[in-house]
């Protein structure tokens, strides 16, 4: 009887922990999965086609990197209960605040353009014209926030996050050679050497895993959701699970194109989907659906990031728990971003594929600045109390910042002097 009571107690305790976690989860998983946006899917697809499985080990290295960066954001948001933009203005003054806000807005807008590029490309495969996709996506993006409740918006977005896992069955369907994946993908190395192209894709893959907008988004989402200090351990778990999702999806996309399109010169995920259709129509269809979903998720979250940031700084009402009438500027600003981004995609002759890849690299190049401010903020005991960064966290963050600066420099040098890396 004692054993049964103990078992029942443990079950009730586990069920209670699960229900608490279910209430808390959201910001971490959403930010990580949304990071596998249209540009990210394209980057992974092209990486697999160009380098086979050779970049998979790098993806596994990026898992703890993504977690370390976002975990700092969790602590800062839950303790200060302020968004990242407001935190920078308050801590560093208006000069650095405007610098960060301008950086963020520009990269956010460019990234939102790439989301619309992905969505239109994906639905073009099913013969849906781009203008219809753009209009439909804008309506859907704005409609998702009409409820005036953060929770409702979050649950809708989580459904789209689950859809992002569609690449897993796609990878299983291609019957990938597991031994080859282990040999080429898990053992670190650069079989293609170190040249301009490899640096570019290294930067693009890093940029598609960690980006400045993620710091601002997760902190604002935590504040809008009303998470507190006592929720930090659950939100850490949420972030860890999200990190795993983002890397797993990336790896599976590389496996799909690394298996079926290795050596084929593709420039986008949409092109990969078209080429995969005749080989395996399910894989091709999953690729297209996943690309649209990734673009939509990215557009939803990234446009919200800028709106939240501007709302925090300009003092507008800026919560998803408010309806349009209560927070008009918050919604109008977001509408302007998505409409402006969608319009670029409809410009005839715009170099959309190049924009998609370069925006990833630009985002990661500007990441050290955002991370530096985050680390400085988390070293202020009067701001975050006992949630201040430990020495290990500071070292890890510094290593990440340093590594990105070095890689960005190497890419910059290789871009100007390509003969140095032949």
């Amino acid at each position, binding site marked *: 009887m004692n054993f049964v009571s103990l078992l029942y107690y443990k079950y009730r305790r586990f069920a209670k922990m699960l229900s608490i976690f279910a209430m808390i989860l959201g910001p971490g998983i959403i930010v990580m999965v949304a990071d596998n946006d249209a540009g990210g899917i394209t980057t992974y697809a092209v990486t697999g086609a160009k380098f086979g499985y050779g970049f998979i080990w790098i993806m596994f290295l990026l898992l703890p990197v993504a977690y370390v960066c976002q975990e700092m954001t969790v602590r800062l948001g839950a303790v200060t209960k302020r968004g990242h933009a407001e935190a920078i203005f308050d801590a560093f003054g208006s000069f650095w*605040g405007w610098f960060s806000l301008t950086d963020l807005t520009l990269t956010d807008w460019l990234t939102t353009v790439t989301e619309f590029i992905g969505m239109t490309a994906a639905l073009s495969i099913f013969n849906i014209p781009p203008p219809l996709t753009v209009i439909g996506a804008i309506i859907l993006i704005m409609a998702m926030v009409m409820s005036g409740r953060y929770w409702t918006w979050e649950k809708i977005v989580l459904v789209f996050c689950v859809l992002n896992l569609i690449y897993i069955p796609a990878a299983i369907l291609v019957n990938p050679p597991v031994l080859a994946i282990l040999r080429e993908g898990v053992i670190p190395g650069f079989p293609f050497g170190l040249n301009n192209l490899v640096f570019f894709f290294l930067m693009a893959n890093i940029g598609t895993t960690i980006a400045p907008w993620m710091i601002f988004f997760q902190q604002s989402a935590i504040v809008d959701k009303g998470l507190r200090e006592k929720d930090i351990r659950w939100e850490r778990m949420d972030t860890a699970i999200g990190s795993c999702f983002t890397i797993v999806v990336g790896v599976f996309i590389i496996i799909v194109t690394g298996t079926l399109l290795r050596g084929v010169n593709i420039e986008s995920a949409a092109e990969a989907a078209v080429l995969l259709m005749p080989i395996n129509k399910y894989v091709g269809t999953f690729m297209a659906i996943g690309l649209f979903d990734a673009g939509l998720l990215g557009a939803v979250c990234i446009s919200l990031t800028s709106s939240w940031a501007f709302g925090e*700084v300009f003092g507008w009402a800026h919560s998803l728990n408010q309806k349009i009438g209560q927070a008009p500027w918050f919604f109008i600003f977001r509408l302007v971003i998505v409409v402006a981004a969608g319009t670029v995609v409809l410009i005839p002759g715009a*170099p959309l594929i190049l924009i998609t890849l370069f925006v990833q690299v630009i985002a990661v*190049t500007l990441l050290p600045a955002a991370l530096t401010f985050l680390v400085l903020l988390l070293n202020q005991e009067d701001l975050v109390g006992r949630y201040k960064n430990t020495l290990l966290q500071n070292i890890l963050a510094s290593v990440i910042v340093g590594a990105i600066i070095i890689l960005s420099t190497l*890419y*910059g040098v290789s871009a100007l002097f390509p003969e140095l890396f032949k």
Partner: protein
Amino acid sequence: MRNILRVSIEKIREINHRYSKPRIRMSRGVRFALLMLRLYLIFLVLILAYKFATMTVLK
């Protein structure tokens, strides 16, 4: 339009005034290092923009 501009400029001035005294006092060296980091990253982005422009023209 002029009215919107005037209101925006006033708002920006108000924000600058509100955040004129930063909570974190950084030494001159740290401020200089941060500025150099920002300018260096912007320089790298400009190199990217140059690469993007040359690739677009070549295509």
